[in-house]
């Protein structure tokens, strides 16, 4: 395997582009969130249509959260998924469940892969800098790839469909 000197190997802008994405996006998100926080109990038609609107059938209505500054947070996170199934329907319930499953898979995936692979990539022997040093492109020795194969098997695993 020939090692080619990459044109942009040592002047990566990856860290900078991460920061300069993160900063404006975070500012934007904070602005949006604070506007939401201020307007939440003043505009019930926008933020709680299911609680106030007469066109929903009684079983479709959802209980209104307290119209206060802070005390709505706890009941909001206490809303059961099952009550969403009953009030908002199958689609909404499955969408929430889908998001949760996705989050679970990616979280467990990062727990599996990060502790093994990130140190491996970092010490892979390549010349990449910044965030590029954490990618598989930084690994020089081909034998290291067996670790990737092993981790991939743990994560995806071909054995389960056979077992089923």
């Amino acid at each position, binding site marked *: 395997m*020939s090692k080619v000197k990459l044109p942009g190997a040592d002047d990566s802008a990856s860290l900078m582009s991460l920061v300069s*994405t993160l900063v404006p996006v975070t500012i934007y998100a904070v602005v949006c969130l604070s506007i939401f926080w201020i307007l939440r109990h003043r505009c019930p038609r926008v933020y709680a249509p299911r609680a106030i609107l007469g066109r929903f059938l009684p079983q479709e209505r959802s209980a209104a959260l307290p119209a206060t500054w802070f005390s709505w947070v706890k009941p909001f996170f206490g809303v059961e998924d099952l009550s969403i199934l009953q009030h908002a329907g199958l689609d909404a319930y499955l969408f929430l469940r889908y998001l949760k499953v996705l989050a679970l898979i990616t979280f467990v995936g990062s727990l599996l892969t990060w502790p093994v692979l990130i140190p491996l990539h970092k010490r892979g022997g390549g010349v990449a800098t910044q965030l590029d040093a954490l*990618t598989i492109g930084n690994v020089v020795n081909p034998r290291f*790839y067996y670790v990737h194969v092993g981790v991939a098997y743990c994560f995806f695993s071909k054995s389960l469909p056979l077992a089923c």
Partner: protein
Amino acid sequence: MSGFILFTIYRECIFYINLRHAYLMSPYHAKRLSSRTVLFANVPNRYLDEQRIRKVFGDTVTNVWIPTDTDELEKLVKERDQTARRLEKAEIRLIKLANELRRKQMAATGQNGSVSPPPPFPSTVASPTSAVASSMAEDLEKGEGSGRVSTSATPMSRLPDVNGSVAAQWVPAEKRPSHRPIANYLRRVDTIKWTRNRLKILRPQIRKLKRSLIKGDGAPLGAVFVEFSNQADAERAFQTVAHHRPFHMSTRYIGIRPDEVVWHSLGLGWGQRILRRFLVLALVTGGIIFWSIPAVIIGTISNVKSIAKYVPILFWLPKLPGPILGVIQGLLPAVALTLLMRIVPWILRGCGRLMGLPSLSMIELFVQSAYFAFQVVQVFLVTTLTSAASSSVMAVIQDPLSTKDLLSQNLPKASNFYISYILVMCLAVGATSLLHIVDLFRHHIMAKSMSSPRMMFNIWNRVKTVHWGGLFPVFTNLGVIGKFPFFLSGSGRC
């Protein structure tokens, strides 16, 4: 821990199947008319007959509806509705105008309404607005005849008790709402009179057409709605073959609510259905390929620093300060990609309609699968490849045989772009959808400037439908991005 993903997916599948069964069999759902009704499309002419359908499906059939071609009636009804809306708008405008003028006049006379003001216009002012309108309206318009308004000599603060238009007391004829219909060769007409006359013409036509359609004169559409007495029978009919020839009565659906039926696609024959499906799939495939052009540009931008050296026009790029370059390489392409992909579901929804899918939910389902293909190809494959390729394009030109190694070395760098993309998706898109900026504008700015009560009611009462077809694939693709680069970059090297 092994096989974690597959374990989770299988568990979810089993859970979903159980939940779906429980939902479908719950009395709330099972007793509904829609879940007891099966829609058959591509029904041969011989079977467009209630008796024959009853014979096929047995005694459990309670109702058979054969929709007929109602294009003409629909056209008339649409025109009637438009005319009625226009009349309503004009009436509201007139009322507001009259009220304003009346208040102005009362203020001008100095009395706060207790003493009667003099009549504003002599009766001659309340003349016909235009020759056309008045001649048409002469004997039809008993209620609105502006020529016959007797502006009583004793006007008062409360509304005068007069025959005809009360507004004529304050509003001169030329100030009344008017428009220029094409049917009248763009000559000006009084809107209220014109629309009232039009409604008078339209109503009997609609009634006549309706009566003949109900009698069964219309051409049947080739589709049948069959209502069964219970859900089990409906499912039985739904899951069995109803006709011995292929494609006939084989397109069937259960549980379609009337408000989500796409009526114009019910009449399509099976040949046309196949043809349309083929064409739309070709269109979507072509769309995926050509949509990659903007995606390529975005992917290139995300690694623009690497190619700037070789493109003389971009000589200024490496000289930019770090943060600005970071914005160009990180934020800009991520936001551009998000916006670019926003347009796609709407185009796909049009495609689904074109394809002849009979219900809105089915269109959403089509959008979901087609949009996922779009997402994977554009957001994932194309952007990864171009982001990697653009950074090594010169090295490839100098030494083409090294492409394999270069790609394998550069492909993983595309993950930087996805960090930006996921940040934008989670923080910016998430915050925006939490803010409901469109709804805020609709309810607190647009609703304030609405003149018509109907519009205000609609804004207050109408709930926007959630288009799931455009929502799921975005997150599915995030899951793909989260899991598979790992695989891809590994296989790129082998």
